[in-house]
């Protein structure tokens, strides 16, 4: 009997948090969303499944991963001001010393921390983590910066982690681990949405009146491939066509304003994400390399393509120019930009 009891207690101690909670317990983090984004006038939910593949992906980036109870349907909130996307809010829970700690993370579209709010935290050290110097330290931190705040094994704060005293170290560790899992899980389960949100944000910034995106599918169809072969050759330019997505940008009356293409460019071992906005006349309005991790010289080379249109690439020879020509040609093949031929 004692052995049986011991086994039950051991199983209870080892099992991860697995809640059979009904959906009536679900509540939107209203207060947290508007605290994190005070300029927001509305928000919309995107519910996606965080599955075992996402768990594996998180596990490859961190020395810890999601508990099985963290799998399932979860919500990413998109705070808006009119048609403008302000960022993301993702709430995740983490086992703390005194029960689950639920943290609402305010992130930008490149998944850098803007701010955080505890949705539920019954730890007495909560106030220490809500101090301005902790928030300042976290603001702007992306995955790598947060990761550097933990030891290699991820089981303690690194010496230059967060400015908290020893009593708050446990909660600080819980917070950072939660933040890392939040960013990694968002990237794993909402990547397609993130690409579209980044495209919409770019359209908002570059095309006044932008209201909606309409995806062009299939993108690399027969006519497109034929035109690309003619303009940039069969070998390609390093643009990863399989991961390319393009949209027509529409105003409220569904009139086209231009287009946005999102893709990746591979050169040797370097992969650069690209998001490019082009107007109806074929002029590049903006060419961004999302994420802070690309070499500055490469970012600069792509920035130099802004305000160019296809005739400017007639004599192009460099890899960046060729890649940019491929983007414009792809859009032109779908009549998203006006052709001069």
């Amino acid at each position, binding site marked *: 009997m004692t052995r049986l009891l011991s086994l039950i207690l051991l*199983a*209870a*101690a080892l*099992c*991860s*948090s*697995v*809640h*059979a909670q*009904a*959906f*009536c*317990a*679900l509540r*939107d983090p*209203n*207060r947290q969303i*508007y605290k994190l984004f005070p300029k927001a*006038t*509305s*928000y*919309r*939910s*995107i*519910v996606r499944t965080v599955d075992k593949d996402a768990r594996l992906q998180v596990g490859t980036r961190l020395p810890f991963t999601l508990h*099985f*109870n963290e*799998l399932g*349907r979860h*919500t990413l909130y*998109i705070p*808006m001001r*009119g*048609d403008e996307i302000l960022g993301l809010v993702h709430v995740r829970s983490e*086992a*703390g*010393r*005194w*029960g*689950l700690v*639920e943290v609402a993370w305010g992130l930008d579209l490149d998944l850098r921390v803007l701010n955080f709010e505890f*949705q*539920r935290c*019954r730890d007495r050290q909560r106030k220490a983590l809500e101090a301005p110097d902790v928030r300042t330290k976290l603001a702007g931190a992306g995955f790598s910066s947060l990761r550097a705040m933990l030891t290699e094994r991820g089981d303690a704060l690194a010496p230059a982690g967060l400015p908290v005293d020893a009593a708050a170290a446990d909660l600080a560790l819980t917070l950072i681990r939660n933040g890392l899992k939040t960013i990694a899980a968002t990237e794993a389960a909402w990547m397609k949405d993130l690409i579209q949100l980044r495209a919409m944000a770019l359209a908002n910034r570059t095309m006044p009146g932008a209201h909606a995106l*309409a*995806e*062009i*599918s299939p993108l690399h169809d027969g006519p497109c491939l034929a035109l690309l072969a003619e303009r940039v050759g069969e070998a390609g330019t390093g643009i990863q066509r399989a991961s390319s997505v393009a949209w*027509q940008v*529409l105003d409220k009356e*569904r009139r*086209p304003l231009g287009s946005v293409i999102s893709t990746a460019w591979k050169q040797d071992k370097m992969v650069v994400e690209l998001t490019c906005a082009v107007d109806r006349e074929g002029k590049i309005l903006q060419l961004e390399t999302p994420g802070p991790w690309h070499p500055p010289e490469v970012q600069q080379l792509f920035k130099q393509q802004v305000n160019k249109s296809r005739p400017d690439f007639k004599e192009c020879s460099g890899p960046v120019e060729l890649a940019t020509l491929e983007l414009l040609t792809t859009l032109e093949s*779908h*009549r*998203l930009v006006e052709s001069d031929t």
Partner: protein
Amino acid sequence: MILLPITLTLAASLPPQAGPEQDPILLAPATGPSWLEAWKENLRWKLDVSARGIFDDSGYQKSLGFFGLDLHKVFTSGNRDVATLLFQPYMTRANDLVPTPPVFDGPDDWELIWRIANVNFKLQQEGALNLRIGHFELPYGLEQTINTNGTLRDYTHGGNFGLKADWGATVNGDLDTLEYEFAWSLGSGNEVRDDGGSGVLSGRLGTPRDGAEVFGVSFVDGEFQTPGGIVPRTRFGLDAQVYRGPMGFFAEFSTGEDNDTDDITRALGEVNWRNSQETILTWVQVVATDKNRNSGLNSLMGVRWEPAIGWSLSTQYLQVLEPLEQGGGHPGSLTLQLRYRF
């Protein structure tokens, strides 16, 4: 009514059908998800099965079985969420259930029981004003913030009102430092029925439920439709939750009248403990009732363990320390429940 969301939900689990190829330029302005894709968007659903056995100290056994759908869907329009649907119909089987709650036709019966089934419309985007229409828990006391539908742990809705949820409408919302919900409902409980009562007004105003200390005031005033006829009931309530470490200390106090003649005062105290993963919850409750200077005292202790994804095992022991009415049942009973959501 029950078949439509179930059919839509099961259909939503099928892979989408590829549409015909269209000119992307023409497609672009007109494109949009099909009705099925739109229904699947922001949808959660689970099936929920549980069995409950009740054993009293005379050896008498009775049982309940539940099989239901738990569905949650957020509707969006453009850049904003506009409404949330919560839909929980449960087929419920009673076996030898004596005394028999009025929702059943007899001690052995099948009944469709609505737990929650409502749509909450956002009237104001910051969440300060929403309109809920459908079947909802009466906004009163601890139950408002700690939902006990389908769990053994329970609070005072049954004792105070004879029902937990009712059909009607509420206004509800989150303010900076308060949350509120005020309702008008039929007073009929599980069924939509009008026996001539004027309905029930209820409401609760409280501090945010996620804090380490949560306080609320609530009221109920109205005419409830019972098998014995219309029963006027009034209650005024105070509730509190204080969390310290892994412990929770809860209290609820209610006072009011039934039938304009019976003075009823009820107090509930609870101490609970949960592990850091919150897979184990234990609780001890004491419920004291005074009705026209007759007093009753019950104690309950229970534990819930969630050993694996979707599984929940619970047990609770009720000891009647002082019966409110003579001959009101056996002094001790043990309840066991196994629940699985998938």
